[in-house]
């Protein structure tokens, strides 16, 4: 096990920027996410040398190169598997996975499923831009039906995956959602993700200026935001549109509905309970248009994390013993051949 140095001097956002030139397209949403992460890390307070960013392949996966931490830019879709080995080998490391909708949900979908099911203690940032950027604009598993791309010149016909719904189904214990440009809210979401022990799944709507520009504009554009974003907060009523609308539980149909708030009466409005699995599912699956996009910490209900359980079991079984190699090698029924007087010589 590594000797982990205690948290020493406070850091500044710049201390978290590596000397590598950032190579995303001008105007890419990734810049804003990088900035938000670098701004948040000093507040989180982990030492840089104990922090590891692990990524797969894609535009988002270049992220580790730009962080002044340990970083591993791996292969397409496999970051969760690599991170699992890192975290099992050294549970003291603070591991962040950076992935995208293609990397994490298409080629790496299986690893994502099992990462969430096992509940490894890592933060997973999924940059969702609903398109393949690095391979030049093909549609992705989160692209809306009808997305025209080089591989779907007449529009895609397969239905998209909802990342947070996938995560909930896979057994995630922390699910949050934010937007690349939400510089005020994102640090809070990242801090919550970090504080959560277990896999923290954070979907970040990220604008690809080149291949899918403004695909989220219907809720991210400044004038659309109030009516089309609902930032949830544990223990607070689910209100949006500057408090003029709220979410109500339609008990008869077990679904949500939007109600107008009259005279500040929020008695019909649901309170957000981030430990309520069913509510979180309803929130992540609200069809956009009829409903706003739910953002913030949608679900947080901690459970034992995988690497902790592995180590607890290892310690329980070994009970502090370290094995005797000689005894192990000669285990089982054996026999001795004596020197000088071998059998039947």
């Amino acid at each position, binding site marked *: 096990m*590594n000797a982990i140095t205690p948290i020493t001097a406070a850091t500044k956002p710049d201390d978290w920027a590596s000397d590598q030139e950032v190579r995303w397209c001008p105007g890419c949403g990734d810049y804003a996410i990088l900035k938000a992460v670098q701004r948040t890390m000093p507040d989180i307070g982990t030492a840089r040398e104990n922090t590891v960013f692990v990524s797969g392949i894609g535009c988002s996966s270049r992220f580790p190169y730009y962080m002044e931490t340990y970083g591993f830019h791996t292969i397409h879709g496999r970051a969760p*598997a690599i991170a699992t*080995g*890192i975290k099992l080998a050294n549970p003291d*490391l603070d591991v962040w996975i950076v992935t995208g909708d293609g990397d994490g949900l298409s080629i790496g979908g299986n690893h994502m499923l099992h990462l969430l099911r096992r509940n490894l203690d890592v933060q997973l940032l999924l940059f969702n831009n609903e398109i393949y950027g690095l391979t030049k604009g093909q549609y992705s598993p989160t692209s809306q039906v009808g997305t025209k791309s080089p591989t779907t010149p007449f529009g895609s016909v397969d239905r998209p995956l909802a990342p947070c719904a996938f995560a909930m189904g896979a057994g995630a214990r922390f699910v949050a959602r934010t937007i690349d440009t939400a510089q005020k809210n994102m640090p809070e979401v990242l801090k919550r993700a970090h504080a959560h022990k277990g896999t923290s799944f954070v979907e970040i709507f990220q604008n690809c200026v080149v291949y899918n520009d403004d695909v989220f504009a219907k809720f991210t554009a400044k004038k659309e935001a109030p009516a089309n974003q609902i930032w949830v907060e544990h223990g607070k009523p689910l209100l949006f549109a500057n408090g003029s609308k709220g979410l109500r539980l339609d008990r008869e149909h077990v679904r949500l509905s939007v109600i107008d708030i009259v005279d500040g009466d929020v008695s019909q409005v649901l309170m957000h309970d981030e430990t309520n699995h069913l509510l979180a599912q309803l929130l992540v699956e609200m069809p956009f248009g009829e409903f706003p996009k739910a953002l913030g910490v949608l679900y947080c209900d901690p459970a034992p994390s995988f690497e902790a359980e592995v180590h607890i079991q290892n310690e329980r079984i070994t009970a502090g013993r370290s094995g005797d190699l000689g005894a*192990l090698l000669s285990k*089982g029924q054996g026999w001795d051949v004596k020197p000088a007087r071998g059998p039947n010589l």
Partner: protein
Amino acid sequence: MATSFQTDDIPQPPADNLPHPEAVVVRFAGDSGDGMQLTGGQFTLSTALAGNDLSTFPDFPAEIRAPQGTTFGVSAFQINFGSIDIETAGDEPDVLVAMNPAALKTNIKALRRGGLAIIDSGEFGPRNLAKAGYAVNPLDTDELNDWQVMAFDISALTLEAVKPFGLGNKESLRCKNMWTLGLALWMFDRDRAPLVDWLKTKFAKNPVLADANIAALNAGHAYGETAEIGGPLKQYHVDAAEAQPGHYRTITGGESLALGLVAGAHLAGLSMFFGSYPITPASPILHHLARLKEFGVTTFQAEDEIAAICSAIGASYAGQLGVTSSSGPGIALKGEAMGLAIMTELPLVIVNSQRGGPSTGLPTKTEQSDLYQAVYGRNGDAPLVVISARSPTDSFDVAIEACRLATQFMTPVMVLTDGYIANAAEPWRVPDRKDYTPFPAHFTEEPEPDGRVLPYARDPETLGRRWIRPGTPGLMHRIGGIEKALDTGNINYEPANHQAMTDIRKAKIDGVAKYIPAQQVDVGNETGRLVVVGWGSTYGPIRKAVQRARSAGHDVAHVHIRYLWPFPANLGALLKGFDKVLVPEMNTGQLKTMLRDQFLVDARPLNKVSGQPFKIAEIETAIAEMLK
């Protein structure tokens, strides 16, 4: 603790009136549900305790419980044991135990002419005969005239023996294998006591079953004593083999390899992380290691083959020794990740327990057809070290060697073993820790003398790069699969840099040849008319065949290659000292092609891909052909 039996404690037989063959081959064959592997395993243990050298060949179907009585559901276990050095499981059995018509049908042709077939006639009813494809009962015809046949109703005899214990019919018949084992123990003059102890432990929770099985064992033994008179059934005594002094046990290739990995990580001073996904015939390695937590072993059953190797790479990155294990199809899935380990120059041991291919192929049968895959099977110029195990016991040393090369050279190392080695058992002289020199891994914890952080700075001798664990203050850096700058490891696409890095990756692996033993001649002289070259599990039959050919006066030698990539530095010169080169392989000629490519020698192939190991005689014939 090990229970030790000293050879001179074993009751010596009234040996003088018994035949003393040098070696005997016995094959137990029955239905998958008849417990033949268990019978074979216990017979192996009693053989080992009697001090014989031995080699086994378990041969079972891929189906877990194939339909009863069918030919494809036959499970067999062959053992060759003797007072001489035993290198193979034997070309042809001297004794066949056939528990049903299907077992007889599929195995009788292998029995030596004149050999003894012991048959459970109680299973030869119309249904079983039909399932095996016998129109008439072969026990009633002259079909078995080439062999000595001893047919009796083992089923009825077993039922009779276990009657006092009040078991149901099905449970009673399950004791048949112990009855058969009892007979075999009598035949080869073996002590029953260790078996009785073993049964008592195995059925500790159900003493009635223990007693029933012991009764069956004793009944089989007693049957031998009484049936001896006048029949073909005879008692033999195989003397103990000469052996180096020391403590011995039997071990299978799977367990030996697992223990070698533990010892290797130990010698490197590292904890081991073993990421794997179940696959036949590699799973036993994961099973063994999963129990060894107190040796600093973490095992992880991943969601798939790719996650298995990736988790191992992650663990190596974090400072443990990452190991992954699979068989051919799984190795194919791991290919891209091996490239990542090559690019990021992290230590990694990859075990490939080969089986018949391509695709799903023959999951439970042996082959050595993944040599190309091991040496060449990745995108880009992606060299890694490839070494091979030749036998169950050799797997231990090969696993240690893989750990040494991986950590000293910061490279993936692939270990090739196969289904035959993995399942076969041999006596093993338990090694002493002092027999092995430690090779402690080194972690870089300070910047370079000039204050720079250079993860790709190298040891000038081995060309291994710096191993810097996350968690080390002041040495933060980024690595990945994109081409790296020569020293910093940062992304670099420059033409001259890629040329230089490709050259270095090649030079590093080529340079391993300087740190491995020179190629020796296993049997015979350093020059001559013919050299027979092998690798992996063909070691035994080739060695025996060459020894026999030399006894017959032929000028032939045996070269066995452990290091397949890079080859030992002197291999080319050595092969050129012979007029002819013969390469027996359980594939269509992969090593043969590599030798031709590397050394421009006229290597000739001898290929067998039936899922069965070579017979000594097959190689002897090929040697004779080459020397005509």
